[in-house]
């Protein structure tokens, strides 16, 4: 098993190099001259050439890439065009909020879809199954940003149940830790609902077909003929076997979660990496954009890797050979 993990880690290296290359190429394609932002517009042409040489901007692109890569590997992503802060600091600042929101989304999606899928599978091809499918499909088909707007309009503006945006109420004087947590949860409800509703359909569908498959197995028939009642059958015999694939599905969910976070965080002004990403798109803050591209891809790769490893650990039949 250790062998396969290290092999996976090795295959990540070219992927990371690839992603840095993509972001470097995009940065090169981006319009505008980075020097023009730094220098006095009245600078003499020969001085400009000197600055260019000092910064190494007159060297071939691949040498520039190599130097940039070395810097990136040491955590130096450059400085934000907007705030002037080091990019790494800006991003690490935003990471906790993103991890909190996507982690909670993941837990809720699994917690909701697992029983829902079992229920739909057990009642396959009945009205219940039908309605579960339609409702989760509606969740999948609603544009997340529009759902966010409608929720804000109804629950925040009209009913004033939830705050409009942000992470925490900073107006409270010297809040206790408990008050801070409550405030964060209160702010998180709407972003969480929006991202959870969009992610229900896939997993529910998956569990449903898994349960339908399991119910056709001989051991279920045997258990039924032994007189095992429906609830015991579902929760003892079916649920256990249906639970295993969750781990791989978690891995498959991660790209969608990270990708979806961009729009949702932006609308709710949730101070995570996604919101930073979209606002940097509008500000044309290329160093931040590229770093976010690298970071979010890394998060996705790591998440997939962890779920693969966890799956091997949980199901030893998925052997060293197949991965």
């Amino acid at each position, binding site marked *: 098993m250790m062998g396969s993990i290290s092999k996976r880690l090795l295959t990540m290296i*070219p992927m990371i190099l*690839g992603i840095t290359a993509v972001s470097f190429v995009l940065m090169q394609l*981006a319009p505008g001259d980075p020097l023009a932002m730094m220098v006095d517009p009245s600078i003499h042409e020969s001085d400009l050439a000197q600055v260019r040489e000092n910064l190494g901007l007159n060297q071939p692109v691949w040498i520039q890439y190599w130097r940039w890569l070395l810097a990136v590997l040491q955590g130096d992503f450059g400085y934000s065009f907007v705030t002037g802060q080091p990019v790494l600091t800006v991003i690490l600042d935003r990471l906790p909020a993103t991890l909190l929101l996507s982690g909670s989304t993941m837990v809720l999606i699994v917690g909701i879809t697992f029983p829902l899928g079992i229920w739909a599978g057990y009642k396959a091809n009945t009205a219940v199954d039908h309605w579960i499918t339609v409702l989760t499909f509606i969740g999948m*088909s609603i544009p997340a940003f*529009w759902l966010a*707007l409608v929720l804000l309009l109804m629950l925040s503006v009209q009913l004033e149940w939830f705050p409009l945006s942000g992470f925490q109420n900073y107006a409270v004087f010297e809040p206790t830790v408990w008050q801070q947590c409550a405030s964060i949860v209160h702010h998180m409800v709407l972003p969480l609902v929006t991202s959870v509703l969009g992610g229900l359909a896939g997993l529910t569908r998956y569990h449903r077909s898994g349960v339908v498959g399991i119910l056709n197995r001989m051991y279920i028939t045997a258990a039924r003929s032994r007189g095992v009642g429906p609830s015991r059958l579902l929760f003892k015999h079916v649920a256990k076997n249906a639970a295993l694939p969750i781990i791989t599905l978690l891995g498959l969910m991660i790209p969608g979660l990270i990708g979806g976070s961009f729009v949702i965080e932006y609308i709710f002004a949730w101070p995570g990496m996604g919101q930073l990403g979209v606002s940097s*798109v509008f500000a044309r803050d290329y160093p931040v954009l590229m770093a976010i*591209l690298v970071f979010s*891809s890394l998060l996705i790769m790591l998440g997939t890797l962890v779920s693969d490893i966890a799956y091997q650990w949980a199901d030893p039949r998925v052997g060293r050979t197949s991965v």
Partner: protein
Amino acid sequence: MVALSALFLMGLIGVSILVPWLSGVDPNVVPLTQQLEPLPPRWDHWVYWFGTDDLGRGILIRIVYGARLSLVIGVVSAVVSTSIGSLVGGVSGYFGGWVDKVLMRFVEFMMAIPTLFLILIIQTIYTPTIVTVMVVIGLTSWMGVARLVRSEVLSIKQQPFVLAARARGVLGWRLLLRHIMPHALPPIVVAATLDVGGAILIESALSFLGLGVQPPHASWGNMLHNSLSYLLDAPWMALIPGGFITATVLAINILGDRLRYRSD
């Protein structure tokens, strides 16, 4: 539900072809004789059934033109992504070996990049037009199809008729394109259908952020972008386009799911 979805989509397609052709109403002209503010739905002329936007233009006619654009963008992007995905997946599954390894690593690599964010960055670098929107969505969402087609081809390759074709001397690309791929067509069609819905959602998000279809062209996404400043005073400007996106994508997803069920 399936019949209703089919009916809705056919109605939408019919209206989006017929109305621009027959009505002669220009969706982008600002009627200068009217008040330039959003007005709620009224019944004196069919153009105003859904109310007007902030420039006094009828929302209904813009919804119709938006439907045309959304459907075209959805279908073209899905055709692009399904073609790339089928080619990559087919070649990968059929030739196997190092070709397969390299291509699948590339698929994994593409899947690790958050698509919407990549599209946003590309749209800031190039001036967003309808064509770039379609191409960029197509180029960034083919990976699922590639995986699907690869596994299909792997299982079709094992079937006796392939062996028979080989024995008759059909080899290489000819075997893949003429004999194996046609059998992988049903799941490809399903994936393409679902991709149309996905592409419509991506387009709406892009246009909503102002990086997709640009005004004065009406798209459901940029109508929503437009509605942001009037959310409280003119909620219909936001509710109607959003409702149409949801209904259309839902109908596509229900049809796709039905197709998948039949092809299994």
